[in-house]
């Protein structure tokens, strides 16, 4: 089989950063969050298709979420999710203590000061729509309909809240 092609990580880092500023600045079309989410959604669907190809069919929602936390996260974000919580009523919170796609924006340690953390989370917001879309796209491809929201108040840690929408 053909060897999987590789490229420098910085290419993708700069591309997603430029995409965030392009869609934030352009004057017409859908609002930036929707456009970036749509960009990510297609990518997530396509990647999930590739990365789940050799897998036996995944079963229930929890099994799909675990696949995303481990295999999918490893392939896309280069490590596994550090912590998975659920209320057992359709909400899952995935926490990544050092979210790779935001490392260029992140301070080396979380900010203790609440106001600065809020400001930082706001600054990170445009960069989160695309990854949220990727995660939702992957889950949707694997049969889990949901919404995904990110919280970056403790960068470089980032958490993603998945709400199952049936």
């Amino acid at each position, binding site marked *: 089989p053909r060897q*999987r*092609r*590789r*490229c*420098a*990580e*910085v*290419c*993708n880092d*700069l*591309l*997603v950063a*430029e*995409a965030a*500023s*392009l*869609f934030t600045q*352009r004057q*017409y*079309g*859908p609002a930036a969050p929707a*456009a970036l989410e*749509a*960009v*990510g959604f*297609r*990518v997530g669907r*396509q*990647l999930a298709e*590739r990365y789940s190809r050799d897998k036996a069919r995944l079963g229930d929602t929890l099994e799909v979420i675990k696949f995303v936390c481990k295999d999918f996260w490893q*392939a*896309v974000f*280069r490590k596994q999710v550090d912590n998975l919580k659920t209320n057992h009523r359709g909400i899952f919170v995935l926490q990544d203590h050092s979210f790779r796609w935001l490392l260029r924006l992140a301070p080396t340690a979380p900010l203790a000061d609440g106001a600065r953390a809020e400001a930082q989370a706001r600054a990170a917001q445009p960069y989160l729509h*695309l990854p949220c879309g990727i995660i939702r796209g992957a889950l949707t491809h694997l049969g889990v309909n949901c919404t995904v929201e990110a919280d970056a108040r403790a960068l470089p840690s980032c958490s993603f809240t998945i709400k199952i929408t049936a």
Partner: protein
Amino acid sequence: MPPRPLPQLEQINAEIFTLTYGSIVRQLIADFEDLDEVNKQLDQMGYNIGVRLVDEFLAKSKMGRCSSFREAAEVVGRQAFPMFLNVAANVTNWNTDGTECSLILADNPLADFVELPEEYKGELRYSGLLCGVIRGALEMVNMDVDARFVQDMLRGDEVYEIRLRLKEHRAEAFPFKDDD
């Protein structure tokens, strides 16, 4: 120029980059509905990336400034392309005064898994991002260039050919005046 070992950058599966780019292009087509405008946006996005990528390149490759456009074109094709995309570009078809040349790629990671619908083949410069990157990066080392695809495998050509034309090689501008 003797070949030197390329510095190893952190690597990822290129499909993430390729699919993300493809999805951005699709979104721009849906939003703008005008392929000319899409081409401009891709070029501008590439320019902004090139301006930042050149720092990464100079820091990692530990190269000095190129003294000529000839040398710079070789560095782009032989070192920068392999370092970032793991493909090399041949530099050929020089004009007599050394201000124009072609970068030839037999393989273009941006175009993996891509098939252009017939209606886009005429106007859409799908991989135009690369031209913007080159233009932005060379501008940072004082070379103003035009870069455009003149052959494109997505449009049925045999290879990818980016034509580079040097418009101006500016003298190094010093940030201070030596007037007293």
